[in-house]
């Protein structure tokens, strides 16, 4: 569609302009998605060129390097020693020594075992009393874990090796130009100044690598094995199965559709509905309540706010578990309703599938509204008062003010927040697990899943109760993909992420 001239567009009546906007949005959608897809090969190309350039650079350093530099390719820290950077030299040499010691004594062995994840779980021998002795031999889990660790250590070592070489090249260049390379003392000092970020980030990043990156990497690998209750180390081995688990999880053709695939589909749909409804119902009701509280002339603002905020403070396992008991079949709500003769039969608030789904959404309002109320209050207070004043002078009614000023402003400012809260809701473990634990359970579902289970709670059940690690890992990866794709699309398409300045 050809873009309308700006003046023509501005001359349209408002509703036609909206229609035009919407039309243009959908027309441009495929193009923008295509652009997005185009970025991927571009990115890959960049990475490939980066790698190519990297090797070219290393090669050039070797070619142009003097003896000290070249020896440093093999003996790390050598060049530094002979360029009077003894502190650096010792550190590099030490690192190389530790690395070689580790690889020779430990790492290589596990790395080799990674290909099979072990061949013999237990060995049985007969001892001198004629009794059979069982000894554990290969433990697939340990092999995989140590293997992953070793891979990360190798990556880390290559990284330090590259730094070592680059330092050599730099020092060589500086000396050739007649400048003294920086002393070790200066290095240490700069860690509190120019390089302070290294000091600040090293420990947190190490923590993230060990307790987040390595575990995620490990679990991704688990998704390609058959690690489950029938392959539990140390008694049993598990091994690689390639994409088998993904096929089980995603098989869509009618004949081959597994119960797992069916369960996954159902739970994925419910997870999406849950996330969508939970996010937006909280958002709009929270905003509504914030507007009520902040309305001019309303007193006790602080009291209302404090009461609502208090629910954030009470640990969720107390409040949610209690609420779940209140709405249980034998719970106080049913009892009271029966006493008051409102009902005769007990209502299965959390035990009938459809009602349970509605109930968790409603109770989630109770959890989420205070938080949203606060955030929207913050944004409301940031809307410049003169916007309203000028609107009033222009003759805008209360409703007009809301739709023309409050709402657009709010959506613009909280756009990114909506996205994060949507993804947070996809992974909202606490509310579902503490309220229903996924119940009511159904025979139609595989892997102990229930009607209100989200992917994340199902993942929990699969690991904690079913020991079905391989499928849990697959679900984890799929959840990541869902979240990543949604985030990517929203970030790239939503105008509020780009035109931030409009409202600033």
């Amino acid at each position: 569609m050809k873009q309308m001239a700006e003046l023509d567009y501005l001359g349209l009546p408002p509703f036609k302009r909206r229609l035009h906007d919407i039309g243009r949005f959908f027309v441009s959608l495929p193009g923008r998605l295509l652009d997005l897809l185009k970025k991927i090969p571009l990115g890959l190309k960049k990475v490939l060129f980066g790698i190519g350039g990297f090797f070219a650079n290393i090669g050039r350093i070797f070619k142009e390097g003097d003896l000290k530099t070249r020896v440093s390719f093999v003996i790390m820290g050598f060049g530094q020693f002979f360029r009077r950077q003894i502190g650096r030299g010792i550190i590099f040499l030490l690192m190389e020594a530790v690395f070689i010691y580790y690889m020779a004594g430990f790492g290589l062995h596990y790395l080799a075992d990674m290909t099979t994840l072990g061949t013999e779980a237990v060995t049985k021998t007969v001892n001198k009393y004629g009794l059979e002795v069982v000894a554990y031999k290969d433990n697939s889990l340990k092999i995989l874990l140590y293997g992953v660790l070793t891979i990360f250590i190798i990556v880390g070592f290559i990284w330090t090796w590259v730094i070592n070489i680059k330092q050599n090249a730099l020092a060589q260049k500086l000396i050739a130009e007649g400048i003294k390379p920086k002393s070790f003392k200066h290095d240490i000092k700069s860690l509190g100044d120019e390089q302070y970020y290294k000091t600040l980030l090293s420990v947190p990043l190490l923590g993230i690598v060990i307790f987040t990156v390595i575990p995620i990497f490990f679990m991704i690998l688990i998704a390609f094995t058959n690690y489950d209750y029938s392959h539990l180390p140390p008694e049993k081995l598990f091994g690689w199965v390639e994409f088998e688990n993904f096929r089980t999880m995603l098989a869509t053709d009618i004949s081959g559709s597994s119960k797992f695939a069916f369960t996954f589909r159902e739970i994925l749909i419910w997870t999406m509905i849950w996330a969508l409804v939970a996010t937006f119902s909280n958002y709009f009701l929270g905003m509504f309540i914030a507007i009520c509280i902040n309305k001019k002339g309303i007193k006790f603002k602080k009291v209302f706010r404090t009461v609502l905020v208090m629910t954030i403070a009470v640990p969720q396992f107390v409040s949610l578990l209690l609420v779940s008991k209140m709405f249980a079949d034998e719970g106080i709500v049913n009892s009271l309703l029966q006493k008051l003769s409102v009902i005769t039969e007990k209502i299965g608030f959390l035990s009938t599938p459809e009602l349970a789904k509605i109930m968790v959404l409603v109770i989630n309002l109770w959890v989420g509204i205070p938080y949203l109320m606060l955030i929207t209050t913050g944004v409301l207070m940031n809307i410049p008062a003169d916007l309203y004043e000028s609107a009033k002078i222009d003759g805008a009614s209360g409703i007009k003010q809301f739709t023309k000023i409050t709402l657009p402003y709010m959506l613009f400012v909280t756009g990114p927040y909506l996205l994060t809260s949507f993804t947070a809701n996809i992974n909202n473990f606490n509310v579902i697990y503490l309220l229903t634990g996924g119940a009511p359970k159904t025979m139609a579902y595989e892997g102990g899943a229930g009607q209100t289970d989200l992917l994340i709670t199902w993942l929990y059940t699969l690991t904690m109760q079913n020991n079905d690690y391989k499928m849990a890992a697959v679900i984890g990866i799929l959840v990541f993909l869902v979240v990543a794709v949604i985030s990517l699309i929203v970030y790239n398409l939503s105008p509020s992420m780009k035109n931030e300045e409009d409202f600033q």
Partner: protein
Amino acid sequence: MSANADTKKKFRSKSRKERTTRILIYIFLTLLCLIWLIPFFYLVFQAFRGESRSMVTYVFPKEWSLENFRILFKETNFLNWYFNTLIVALFNAVLQTVIVLSVAYALSRMRFKGRKLLMNLMLILGMFPGFLSMIATYFILKLIGLTSENAIPGLILVYAASSGMGYYIAKGFFDTIPKSLDEAARIDGATRSRVFFRIIMPMSKPIIIYTIMMAFIAPWGDFMYASLITFGHEEAYNVAVGLYKWLDKEHINSYFTVFCAGGLFVSVPVTALFMALQRYYVEGVTGGAVKG
């Protein structure tokens, strides 16, 4: 004359209309507050109920007593769990605050190669469901012997280790401090580390308190991580995991009111702390727009 009376009437009707909406809003908000408070009243009534330790069909206790608390402290592991959680919370408050502020400062105030990349990587890592990494984390902890009976240091380590990714709010705060302050201090002769400690930190009281508060409160409510790491070792449970068990089918009839007593005992100090520091929480969440 009559026109004048007309406008007067108009004004009056307008103010009357406003008053009715105001009354409606008051009613609505009061109702809302009641709904929000009901579970807590229920919790208190159950915690002090003397008769029958199971769920009953009425709200107000027939007999008020402290029996449930006696059972809680004397006959169960509750105090154990409580101190476990307290220790984890205290350590976490210190470690997590140091880590979060360090990361936020580095990413907000310093420019270095790979900064954008680092932020993007952390964003992507955050998209993996936390529990996914927990399974492997469990094995890593087991490897260094920090599960079950040693779960407390293990839990502290896990909470602190991944906390670096939650730097957003603190970074948002630092971003609002004018850069020229850093620059002025650097020209005055301060190193980056001095700028951090002597200029930025003293100005960041609200965000420091916010971070400490969140880091202290989080372990009290954590169920997912704690249940995995303390798996099978009751002594090492935190309050959430411990109390949760009392509500399953086998225990609920003899432990429901004790659960409520425990819940109350956990909630009151945490909530009190939260309310006392509410201002900082509200400022942190709203980016300083609302002064609580």
